[in-house]
């Protein structure tokens, strides 16, 4: 039990379970998943699909945060990527052809990659603080997206493109497959290679890492690029969801959600050690929370209050202090109140003379008598 409480996933999972329970109480069929014409239907599937883009973004964000950075521009990249892809499809001769869709996706991804490169350039080469460096793209990027769509919402009809999000494979929507597969891929790439460790080293102590020969700059740059690319992919999923590129609203405030997911997952914003499985759970918590608001029928006026409450409770439970208290309580229960005193076993040849006398009672004595110290 104590082990479980100490595990970094414990509280995020508890939060997730609590939300699911609350939903199930309000709506007993919440967890029910039905199967019809090869599709799974039900709230859990909806939640997973809605979580897919956030999962990708939070994944990139985790890596960026590990280097002590932050990327505020992900929402703008989502908008740009969706805008480019849909604009390309809508102006192409044949929106329904897979070739067109492939080209659209490729263009969008390349563009997001470039945007990620740009962020990385500002942060690593020019040495601009990440929050400001990415704030630039956060502002300008949405302008670019609007420039592409002319300020209107671009809509298209293209079955293959729609399939990227809502196509079904083995009963689950494509978006879920794509995001989970990429998540797993990146997680493996980071954890099964040395990248994760070098990333953490860079985030914890850049100066020391540099001296140890770590290519901190390249790594940081790569991470921003990856974050841009992942956000771009998320943008494709988002635009394929509604088949509309809304330059103004696509991915708005998603950076906050992503950061929140990362933090709920137990990764510190101060960089260093990161925790991809935690991010995964964090994303599910946020997606479920979004759904909970509607299922519980919370009035829009108090929705923000509710969100605040949940965030406070989850983060308080996760806070080191509270965890410690839980752990100590568990320890007490196991061992009784007295903390064991370990007597060191010193196998030294020399006897161990511990002063036997009490300390001199008066403190104005300058030095203790020789007697008091047993040789």
């Amino acid at each position, binding site marked *: 039990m104590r082990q479980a409480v100490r595990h970094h996933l414990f509280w995020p999972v508890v939060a997730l379970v609590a939300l699911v329970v609350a939903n199930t109480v309000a709506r007993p069929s919440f967890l029910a998943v039905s199967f019809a014409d090869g599709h799974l239907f039900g709230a859990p599937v909806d939640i997973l699909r809605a979580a897919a883009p956030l999962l990708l973004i939070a994944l990139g964000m985790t890596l960026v945060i590990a280097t002590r950075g932050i990327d505020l521009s992900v929402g703008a990249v989502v908008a740009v990527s969706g805008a480019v892809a849909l604009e390309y499809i809508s102006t192409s001769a044949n929106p329904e052809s897979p070739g067109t869709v492939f080209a659209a996706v490729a263009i969008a991804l390349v563009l997001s990659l470039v945007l990620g490169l740009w962020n990385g350039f500002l942060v690593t080469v020019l040495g601009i*603080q990440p*929050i400001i460096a990415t704030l630039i793209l956060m502002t300008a990027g949405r302008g670019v997206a609007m420039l592409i769509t002319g300020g209107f919402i671009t809509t298209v009809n293209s079955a293959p493109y729609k399939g990227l999000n809502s196509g079904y494979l083995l009963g689950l929507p494509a978006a879920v497959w794509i995001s989970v597969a990429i998540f797993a891929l990146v997680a493996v790439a980071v954890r099964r290679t040395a990248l994760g460790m070098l990333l953490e080293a860079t985030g914890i102590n850049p100066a020391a890492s540099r001296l140890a020969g770590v290519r901190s700059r390249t790594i940081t740059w790569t991470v921003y690029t990856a974050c841009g690319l992942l956000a771009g992919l998320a943008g494709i999923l988002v635009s394929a969801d509604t088949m509309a590129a809304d330059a103004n609203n696509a991915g708005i405030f998603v950076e906050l959600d992503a950061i929140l997911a990362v933090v709920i997952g137990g990764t510190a914003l101060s960089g260093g050690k990161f925790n991809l499985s935690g991010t995964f759970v964090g994303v599910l918590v946020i997606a479920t929370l979004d759904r909970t608001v509607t299922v519980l029928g919370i009035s*829009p006026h*108090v929705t*923000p209050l509710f969100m*605040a409450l949940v965030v406070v409770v989850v*983060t308080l439970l996760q806070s*080191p202090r*509270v965890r410690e208290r839980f752990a100590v309580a568990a320890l007490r229960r196991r061992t009784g109140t007295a903390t064991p005193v370990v007597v060191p076993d010193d196998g030294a040849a020399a006897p161990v003379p511990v002063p036997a006398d009490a300390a001199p009672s008066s403190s104005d004595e300058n030095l203790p008598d020789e007697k008091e110290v047993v040789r």
Partner: protein
Amino acid sequence: MTATTAGTVARRAPSFRLDRRYLPVAGTFVVLALMLVIGGTRHENFLTPTVFSNLFINNAHLIALAVGMTFVILTGGIDLSVGSVLALSTVIIASLLQAGLPTGVVLVVAVLAGALIGLAHGVMIQGFGVQPFVATLAGMFFARGLCFVIAPESISIGDASFKAIAGWDSWIGYFRVTMAVVIALVVAGIAFVVLHYTRFGRTVYAVGGGEQSALLMGLPVARTKVLVYVVSGTCAALGGVLFAMFSSSGYALSGVAMELDAIAAVVIGGTLLTGGTGFVLGSVLGVLTLGAIQTIIQFEGNLSSWWTKIVIGVLLLVFVVLQRVLTLRKT
């Protein structure tokens, strides 16, 4: 004059150089001045006292926000709630005035509410080790939610004494100052004194320089960290007062994303987000910079909505890069 004197002067020269710590602020100042001059060459009515006064009048509330944010960022924290707290403050003021409470009481209540939210942040961050980003994000949701609960619709302020205070203005030469500007500048002045001439202020810097070190130096780290959030909350609420004066109304949706402006202003003003270095007057310059960018865009007058965003981004970029180049050169 002999060669010796020349030699002495030459060797002395480096000591006239600006202290490294002031470089970012100086950089901001130079680039801001440049920007204004360039704006002035492009538009006739740009470099006028009116425009300059408006820069302050329109951004007084942001100055208050940025001042509070400076304290937080100097300790290495961040406060995302300021925009929402500003809105909450305007809503409290407008609704209480509507209910007929005296102006003095209302203002005190509004500012206290901000301070309390700040205190809650401080306790969460210091007492429970919650990360500032998250604690204040929760505070942001909370304050915004409270706004909607109190009054989802905008309420205009009709109270005579409040309007009298808000409407007070005076001319210093050709420059107009309003009450809000006076308050904002006084707040900035007080912040300057507090940061540089009190133990609390120096502890703020010390905590930013290294929390562990400050703790081992025996400085009251915990108290300071809680207090900076109280300061920020209070300043945000004061910003709300100024915004209520500026707009004579309270509205739940005001100040959306204003925290980003405040953070940007602080960072542009030369404060490092990692804490420990920066000046509150730099933050004021940062606010003026953002205001100047807005003004330039408004004077351009033919930018479509998207070009506006792009140009803001580009100007921000130019600014940050220039500042960076200026500071790199001299170090």
